[in-house]
């Protein structure tokens, strides 16, 4: 009740000098309704995460019941999951895949995006439209021939077929970077050129520092795409558990290791935690990056 009274006072102060009583009452109701819906939605959005976390610390016996609050807090579940499955190996593989793919993607995609944003050449529009087309191509469409090529190089059964192509640019990242780079006024690179900077130095010294937010966004998106990727490792990592990623292992965790929900949820928390931690440190980067993907 106190919240709504202060709101009324605030409104009375901000709005027209003599607001009608009825209108003020309606505004208050509207204020309460909006925030009540928001709080209800927030509970629904956070609920799953809370229940997953609570289940992750339940005992084996309690995991067989439908009681929601842990009777005892079994933190040792997080140690137990490392004994049930080669989690450290999977985490290591996932980090290797995510880091290498992200670095390779940046090296190859930034020059392409820069060319699409800045250079004038014949076929520039066509090239941009083809980038969008490849971005939208379902990965399953070309899967068979691409798989056969990697099989010929004896690289199936490893994660390399997912990492090496990143040296040849990633369509989504090129698209996103290009969308950002066109918003940098030309005057900056023109000024650099007048000062005798070559095209490449202009890119490295002038444009890249200005494009930091976009680069951070594509790097984070790429990293988490790889961290979360299930289809790619399912196709290429093969049956040897030592080559699996966290996503792959997590999906098979419950059935292969015949464990209870509590341990499965503990492993789930483990997979979610890094993403959520990074998000809280880099929230702005994510939000600005997502906005770039929605350009009209």
């Amino acid at each position, binding site marked *: 009740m106190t919240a709504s009274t202060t709101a009324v006072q605030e409104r009375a102060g901000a709005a027209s000098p003599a607001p009608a009583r009825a209108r003020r009452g309606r505004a208050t109701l509207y204020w309460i309704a909006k925030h009540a819906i928001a709080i209800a939605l927030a509970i629904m959005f956070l609920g799953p995460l809370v229940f997953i976390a609570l289940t992750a610390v339940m005992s084996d016996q309690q995991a067989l019941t*439908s009681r929601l609050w842990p009777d005892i807090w079994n933190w040792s579940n997080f140690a137990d999951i490392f004994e049930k499955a080669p989690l450290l190996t999977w985490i290591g593989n996932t980090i290797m895949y995510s880091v290498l793919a992200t670095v390779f993607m940046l090296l*190859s995609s930034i020059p392409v995006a820069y060319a699409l944003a800045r250079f004038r050449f014949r076929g*520039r529009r066509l090239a941009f439209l083809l980038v969008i087309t490849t971005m939208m191509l379902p990965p399953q469409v070309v899967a068979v021939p691409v798989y056969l090529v990697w099989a010929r190089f004896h690289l199936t059964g490893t994660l390399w077929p997912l990492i090496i192509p990143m040296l040849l640019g990633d369509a989504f990242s090129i698209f996103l970077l290009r969308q950002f780079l066109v918003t940098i006024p030309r005057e900056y690179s023109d000024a650099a050129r007048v000062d005798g900077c070559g095209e490449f130095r202009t890119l490295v010294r002038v444009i890249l520092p200005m494009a930091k937010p976009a680069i951070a966004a594509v790097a984070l998106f790429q990293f988490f795409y790889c961290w979360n990727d299930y289809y790619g490792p399912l196709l290429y990592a093969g049956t040897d558990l030592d080559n699996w990623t966290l996503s792959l292992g997590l999906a098979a965790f419950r059935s292969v290791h015949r464990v209870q929900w509590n341990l499965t949820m503990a492993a789930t928390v483990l997979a979610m935690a890094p993403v959520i931690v990074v998000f809280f440190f880099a929230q702005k980067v994510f939000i600005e990056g997502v906005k770039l993907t929605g350009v009209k």
Partner: protein
Amino acid sequence: MAAITLGNRLRPLAYLSPWLIGFALFFVYPLISTVYFSFQRYDLFTLEPVGLLNYRYFLQDDAAWTSIRNTLWLVVVMVPLRVVFGLGVAQLVTRLKAGAGIFRTIFYLPSLVPLVAGTLGFVYLLNPATGPVQAILGAVGVRSPDWFGDPAWSKWGLTMLALWSVGDLMVIFMAALLDVPKQLYEAAALDGATGWRQFVHITLPVIRPVLMFAAVTGVIQTLQYFTQAMVAARVASGATDSAGSVFVPGYPDQSTLTFPEWLFHQGFRDFAMGYACVLALVLFAVSMVFTLILLRQFRGFGEEDA
């Protein structure tokens, strides 16, 4: 002078070269190769031309048509629900006076949760034996359906998961809503239009391109819908990967079998690679239709700054 001009001409080519090579190796070549393999019988060992046999088999492959119906269901139900829900949440957050930043964070967060982890979480939450949702509904005397174990409910379970991770759409819609010129609303208010009428006559027309973009990319993403269906079916069925047995996606009763899943299963579990290429071409054709719609939105896009 001539050298400089030549250098200027080659420069775009040099900068574009990684992508040009990638485009040739991972798009043009495999696409042509897919057409070639679609006329072959190939199981990694023997390659044998079979003419139109794979195509004829597609017409009578019941599982393929079931997977097409399921994928269509997701496109028709899940995509519009996501757009409407995302717009609703965005509209709500942009109008909050208190705590808008916190609410935006909360609503965005689930869209970052790894797909496999989120799916596992939902299968657990919604399982009728020990799941919290059943526990809560049971307390008020409602019997929860067996979401991921009942063919009538499994796609709705996946839809709930998709609505939970609507945060990326919300962010895009929020940016669009905040871009709508304030004067338009003020002018409408002077004319006596408020609330719902403002929304229909001002907000919707102004943000229409953004909604279209979200809907079309949503359709294309849904045509690739794979991970959530695969993981949900695997975990809900409790299938074990003992030696020699291969998990067939779609549990329960092929109700979550999507087209990309069937393609994957045919090509990489049954090793009917020629037939998988027929399915790949079907997927290519359908997603190209929607990609072309998307490209029309970008028409003239590369020029405004040239």
